[in-house]
């Protein structure tokens, strides 16, 4: 056992109760929590991390999607937002959080988004341009961020580039946090070769090496507040899968509690603790990037199971139509289920499997939903607006055009009311498709907004110092503080903003 191992606990050291104390208690070990731990431990602070999921150890990602979902996803990926449609909400629940199961995409916060936050949401001096740029630089160095290599790009993404080029749409290679990616298209199932520089392989071990302690498989239940100040966090050790209880954990927070538990879980923890309720905005303004995909059939081999899960994208329509395109290479256990057929029709489609490509359209949705406590868990509500759906339908049509420009002989759109397979001259049927969200198979990633940042305590939950307006010593530093969605994959922005916020605490 190494010195680092000795600081990692999944149950009480003895008996049924574990106690600890630290300068800072961080709840959540995803990109936000890990960046905070990295920053504070580097500055010499004493840190305890509490994580609801478990540390997924050697050899545990085996290239099987469901196995990964069982180990690393909240509710095995079965969390859903309710609204006019039912939309899966994808969230990691393991040490490293979303960084373990995302596609390792790294984009800086778009300047127009930050400008809008300053203009419309009065975020004060929360995010300074120079500090932000410095944080981005550091993270890019630490996580070995570089453009997807040719060897890991894969033909699926090359086709997106080819089609976009032919139609004159701007597109670009995706920078990723990886070291030695071999392009197994397995990012969403946990990198099987440990190439993805997720938090469990980078900032968390580094923080542990500097003296931090990690309590995983420990669900934070309540933050105690005394005399208007956060004093301690209570958690319960539980097997994340079986929910078997293993004991209790109490950590005294000498300086404060930093909540980085996600856009869904952070407001719930505050709610349970009676914190942040004053403005009436806690749990509101839930935003996301819902999306749908289309498949395309080519005359030659594509081999969708090869290449980075995501290696090429196009932001050409982000500002004008609030949509973004991405290549999405998937293994068969995820991709076959996305084809629109069942029975022998589905099996017949497999004859073209090696010639199929898959591309996704993510909406920068304008809709706002909410997160509320219901029983022991969250009730997430979200319905895309009519304009969001018009944008999505337009995006899917443009994607079909891009694929045809790249040489596709057929498009497989998966929209109810539209034939499962469209020839090149039938693409107009997509334009006539319903804009009812129930007609599309969508999933939702990248969640924001439920603990909104702002200077006005009547309109926001946390202030420009990331401290909850109504309670001293409780900070929120994850994407729940972002006033809007971003239009790009958020890991980099989440880490950079958390780094800035933590640096101010570090002094």
């Amino acid at each position, binding site marked *: *056992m*190494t010195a*680092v*191992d000795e600081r990692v606990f999944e149950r009480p050291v003895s008996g049924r109760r574990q106690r600890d104390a630290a300068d800072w208690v961080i709840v959540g070990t995803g990109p936000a929590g890990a960046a905070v731990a990295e920053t504070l431990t580097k500055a010499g602070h004493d840190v305890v991390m509490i994580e609801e999921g478990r*540390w997924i*150890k*050697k*050899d*545990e*990602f085996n*290239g*099987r*999607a*469901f*196995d990964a979902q*069982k180990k690393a996803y909240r*509710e*095995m990926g*079965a969390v859903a937002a309710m609204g006019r*449609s*039912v939309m899966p909400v994808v969230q990691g629940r393991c040490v490293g959080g979303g960084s373990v199961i995302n596609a390792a995409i790294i984009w800086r916060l778009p300047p127009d988004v930050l400008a809008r936050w300053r203009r419309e949401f009065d975020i004060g001096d929360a995010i300074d341009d120079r500090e932000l740029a410095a944080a981005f630089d550091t993270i890019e160095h630490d996580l070995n961020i570089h453009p997807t290599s040719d060897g890991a790009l894969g033909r699926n993404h090359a086709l997106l580039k080819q089609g976009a080029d032919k139609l004159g749409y701007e597109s670009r290679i995706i920078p990723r946090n990886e070291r030695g990616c*071999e392009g*197994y298209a*397995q990012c969403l199932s946990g990198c*099987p*070769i*440990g190439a993805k520089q997720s938090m*469990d*392989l980078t900032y968390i*071990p580094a923080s542990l090496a500097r003296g931090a302690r990690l309590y995983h498989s420990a669900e934070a239940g309540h933050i105690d507040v005394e005399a208007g100040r956060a004093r301690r966090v209570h958690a319960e050790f539980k097997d994340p*899968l*079986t*929910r078997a209880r293993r004991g209790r954990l109490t950590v005294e927070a000498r300086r404060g509690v930093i909540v980085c538990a996600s856009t869904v879980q952070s407001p719930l923890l505050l709610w349970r603790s009676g914190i942040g309720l004053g403005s009436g905005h806690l749990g509101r303004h839930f935003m996301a990037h819902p999306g749908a995909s289309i498949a395309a059939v080519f005359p030659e*081999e594509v*081999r969708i199971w*090869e290449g980075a899960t995501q290696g090429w994208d196009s932001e050409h329509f982000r500002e004008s139509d609030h949509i973004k395109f991405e290549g999405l290479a998937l*293994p*068969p*256990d*995820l*991709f*076959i*289920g996305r084809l*629109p*057929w*069942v*029975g*022998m029709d*589905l*099996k*017949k489609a*497999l*004859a073209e*499997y*090696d010639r199929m490509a898959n591309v996704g359209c993510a909406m920068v949705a304008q809709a706002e939903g909410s997160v509320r406590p219901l*029983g*022991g*868990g969250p009730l997430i509500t979200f319905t895309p607006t009519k304009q969001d759906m018009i944008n999505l339908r337009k995006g899917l049509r443009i994607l079909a055009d891009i694929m045809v420009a790249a040489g596709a002989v057929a498009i497989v759109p998966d929209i*109810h009311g539209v034939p499962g397979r469209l020839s090149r001259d039938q693409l107009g049927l997509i334009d006539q498709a319903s804009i009812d969200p*129930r007609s599309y198979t969508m999933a939702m990633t990248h969640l924001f907004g439920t603990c909104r940042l702002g200077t006005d305590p009547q309109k926001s939950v946390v202030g420009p110092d990331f401290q909850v307006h109504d309670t001293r010593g409780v900070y929120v530093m994850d994407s729940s503080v972002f006033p809007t969605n971003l239009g790009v994959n958020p890991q980099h922005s989440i880490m950079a903003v958390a780094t800035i916020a933590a640096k101010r605490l570090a002094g």
Partner: protein
Amino acid sequence: MKLSSAEKTWAEAALEAIIPPGGDVTPLSANDTKSIAVLEDMVMWLSGMNAVGLRAAVWFFEFGGATFGGVGLCKRFSRLPLGDREAAMVKLNHSNFFFFRQMALLMKTVACFGFGADDRVRAALGMDRPVKFVKRGLSS
């Protein structure tokens, strides 16, 4: 919560209708690739309402044939010949009722988790490069 042996039989009848045996690429069905194990895991380990909902879906398939397949399907689903089950599943998949389509999607997702993860299926699809797995994370 565990699926009973009867519920497993009912679920397998539905999974087989999603991915039946036969076909040019691979003769394997969802049942040959143990998709039922995925469903059992989900019912066993999902939290309260999600597990109950999944279990209810299994009952829906077994006893709800008349609602989605018409009067001709008022028999129990698992007692129908495969061709009839498949035809009913196609109808469900294209239904104008969102709930029915969601039922088909749910079962298809479960079926494909098992089917698409099977090495024999992957080889038949042309996946000829095995993943080189390496150790990751802590030493313990």
